[in-house]
């Protein structure tokens, strides 16, 4: 008889893993679209640049990118911190700093987009 598996932990691993992949696809699509806009060969003046980010869809897409980045980087940085930083206090400190930095990025993005 197989012994019953004792599952421990907080059980959010699969969710984080999946979120990291979905946000990766969102950011990859945004990157390719933005690169495509740059590659049209049209010289980018201030007017072109400003108008691009005045589009409602571009603002929403950029905000979606920023939120995706924050979520994706949270999972990634947390993985790295858990792998290499052993002292609990330092690990917790770095995780808190990471959250603050990422939240700051999202806030800053909102501020830049909806000025």
């Amino acid at each position, binding site marked *: 008889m197989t012994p019953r598996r004792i599952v421990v932990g907080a059980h959010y691993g699969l969710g984080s893993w999946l979120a990291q992949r979905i946000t990766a696809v969102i950011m*990859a699509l945004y990157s390719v679209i933005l690169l495509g806009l740059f590659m049209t060969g049209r010289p980018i003046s201030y007017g072109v640049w400003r108008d691009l980010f005045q589009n409602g869809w571009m603002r929403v897409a950029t905000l979606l990118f920023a939120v995706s980045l924050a979520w994706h980087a949270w999972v990634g940085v947390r993985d790295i911190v858990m792998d290499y930083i052993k002292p609990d206090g330092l690990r917790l400190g770095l995780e808190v700093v990471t959250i603050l*930095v990422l939240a700051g990025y999202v806030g*800053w*993005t909102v501020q830049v987009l909806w000025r």
Partner: protein
Amino acid sequence: MSSAAAKRPRPKYLNLPAILFEIRLPMPAWVSILHRVSGTLLFFPFAAWLLYLLDTTLASEQGFARVKDHYLQLPVVKLALIVFIWAYAHHFCAGIRFLLLDLNMGIELAPARRSATAVIVMGLLLTAYCAWRIW
């Protein structure tokens, strides 16, 4: 187990010189560690730097002109831009490889090693192309 293997001191503790010079990491290991290195760099400082550039270029026409005609022309800034492009290109290519591996595509040893080499080469080629365009 051969006697030579038995005599080697165990456990073997890994450190940076060992990883760089003593142990020959397979290509997929390089892709993985560089994915971490590039990801960390993109999280900080590059994301903050890009937001600063977006902020400045969108805030005013003067800011846009200052970034485009002066700031981005500085050699040290161009160098930073090239490092950013490498980090983005490598992270992008390696990420697509990982997504395909997650879908069970190319998970045999030989194709996984080939795709790892392809990722590293693609990252460097894209960086070289952009570096050539920037300078």
